[in-house]
């Protein structure tokens, strides 16, 4: 789960990171008052859950409250990569002498948190990684002992030569790591961490992604989910405990298991069509889940046919077939629907589906081909 900048700032601030004061507004008319209260200059920042909002014009400097109001008006309602800006942050501006990058992720190979720091801050870190890898210092942190003093010295020394600045950077990195661990983050990033001309260090942007598996014990964080910033279908899928990702094709698919769902999409593409979505209904195949999945897919007007691809292992295929028929009854839809059920009791399932208008398929390949055909 991605957090909005304003929430990430709040968390960082709580862990002692030096974050400039800011005020969140949902009505651009409040921008002037907010700027006045904070003291100008301020930065007006669109709150959207996509990268590259700066380039898209979603971040502007304002030297007077009037200017802030004007910029907020422009940013509010703006469309950034398909998301409409509905919240704007007014933040106290900081003079910039140097910009650093500081981020924490989980390193898959060491299976430990990894801190990345770079003196090339304020730009896309992936670009730095591919063009100037020597400008990134990676430090693996053993969670058994936490971040160690010598590691902090090493990282701070990689970014600055100034004793006072190094001290502040070390403190900031330490706080960032604490925040990362404290909220079950999968990513915690400050880009840029800024040194001002008077030698003070500030976190002027903030980004946190949360490990979804940790949300059950992070009630406060879970409550920060901004559904206004995601597609409605994704919100609905999540509420139904389905894994769903919208794509641009016209063959909808409902699959059990993430790997098989990806393989199904890949096969649709392989045979010359485009999948409309990724959708994994997980281990169980209750009628309710099938119904919910169908509902979500039908929101997409591009969808011209639906493929249900189930490998019934522990799940019995006849149960699934009955579930599909039941779900089908409850909803009004006339899209062609191809059903492939393999594994336990698949023959029985096929019998059940024989008298319906559902198109049966005996293999995944056949199912994909028939669904593509039906979408034409």
């Amino acid at each position: 789960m991605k957090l909005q900048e304003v929430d990430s700032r709040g968390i960082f601030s709580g862990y002692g990171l030096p974050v400039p004061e800011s005020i969140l507004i949902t009505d651009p008319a409040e921008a002037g008052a907010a700027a006045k209260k904070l003291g100008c200059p301020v930065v007006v920042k669109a709150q959207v859950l996509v990268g590259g909002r700066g380039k898209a014009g979603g971040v502007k400097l304002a030297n007077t409250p009037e200017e802030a109001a004007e910029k907020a008006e422009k940013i509010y309602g703006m469309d950034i990569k398909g998301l409409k800006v509905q919240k704007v942050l007014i933040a106290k501006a900081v003079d910039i002498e140097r910009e650093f990058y500081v981020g924490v992720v989980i390193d898959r190979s060491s299976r430990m948190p990894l801190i990345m720091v770079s003196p090339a801050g304020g730009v896309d870190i992936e670009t730095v990684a591919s063009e100037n890898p020597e400008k990134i210092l990676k430090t693996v942190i053993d969670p058994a002992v936490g971040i160690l003093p010598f590691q902090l010295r090493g990282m701070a020394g990689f970014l600055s030569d100034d004793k006072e600045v190094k001290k502040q950077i070390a403190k900031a990195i330490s706080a960032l790591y604490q925040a990362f661990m404290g909220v079950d983050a999968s990513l915690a990033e400050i880009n840029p961490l800024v040194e001002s001309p008077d030698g003070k260090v500030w976190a002027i942007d903030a980004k946190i992604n949360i490990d979804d598996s940790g949300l059950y014990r992070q009630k406060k964080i879970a409550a920060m989910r901004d559904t206004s910033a995601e597609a409605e279908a994704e919100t609905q899928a999540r509420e139904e405990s389905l894994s769903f990702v919208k794509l641009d094709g016209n063959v909808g698919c409902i699959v059990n298991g993430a790997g098989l769902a990806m393989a199904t999409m890949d096969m649709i593409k392989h045979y010359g069509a485009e999948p409309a979505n990724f959708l994994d209904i997980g281990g169980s195949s209750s009628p309710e889940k099938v119904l919910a999945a169908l509902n979500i897919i039908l929101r997409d007007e591009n969808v011209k046919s639906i493929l249900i691809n189930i490998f019934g292992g522990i799940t019995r295929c006849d149960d699934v077939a009955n579930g599909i028929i039941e779900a089908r009854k409850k909803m009004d839809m006339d899209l062609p629907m191809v059903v492939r059920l393999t594994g336990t009791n698949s023959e029985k399932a096929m019998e059940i589906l024989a008298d319906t208008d559902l198109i049966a398929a005996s293999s995944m390949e056949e199912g994909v081909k028939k669904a593509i055909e039906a979408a034409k």
Partner: protein
Amino acid sequence: MSILVDENTRLIVQGITGRDGAFHAAQMIEYGTEVVGGVTPGKGGMTTDSGVPVFDTMEEAVRETGANTSVVYVPAPFAADAVFEACDAGVELVVCITEGIPVADMIKVLPYAERRGTRVVGPNSPGVISPGSAKVGIMPGSIHRKGNVGVVSRSGTLTYEIVYHLSENGFGQSTCIGIGGDPVVGTNLLDTMELFAEDDQTEIVVLIGEIGGNDEEKAAEIIKGGYPRKVAGFIAGRTAPPGKRMGHAGAIVTGGSGTAADKIKALNDAGVRVADTPAQIVDIVKDLA
């Protein structure tokens, strides 16, 4: 001889009185796995419908039954503790089926297990099966046949799909292992390849990868350096858009790395043929056999 589980496996089911634990315990017994006990704190002393004794603690269960393996069906908030407990009780292998364990828990559990010499498979794994000998997990036993193909995968049903094709075409399996779909897992692709390399029964390894991470790339390096088994590949997620999690917590392309294209290229460069569809794996295996 197969890897990880076999006829010497003496299994404890952690969370045996839960819905999933009870069901799969019965399935595993039916398959022939020697399930010697179960653990549910507070339910010690009872016996399950399948006649399995239940203990309060892993320590007691191992002491009383001589178990060497455990499988975890405990709900996510308590699953890390179950693995810790299994390590302390001294089992050699813990297979963690539970999905949704926080990564912050696993990064503490895994080094703990390593220090105590306990191997962990998973979490979010369908389990491990050595056809004809033992099944430890949730995969449908019926689709497997005994043979000389080792299968390693990050997913469940996709593996069943491929195993189904293999078995239907006469290619039995030595061991099939689902390493789990999370970004941080215990035994990983490379560890498994090492195990297969030392297993006499395994002649061909089917490597079923997916987007995310770079274990497949590393596997390709190992194969390039001279790997003693023939390898066939499949990579799921060619059509996955970057930045989106495809079901598995670990199946996500981030910062341009972990794409299916990269993985396929790496494997091809190492001389491994990668199937375009699950069924095609059979053709590749036929050629290798």
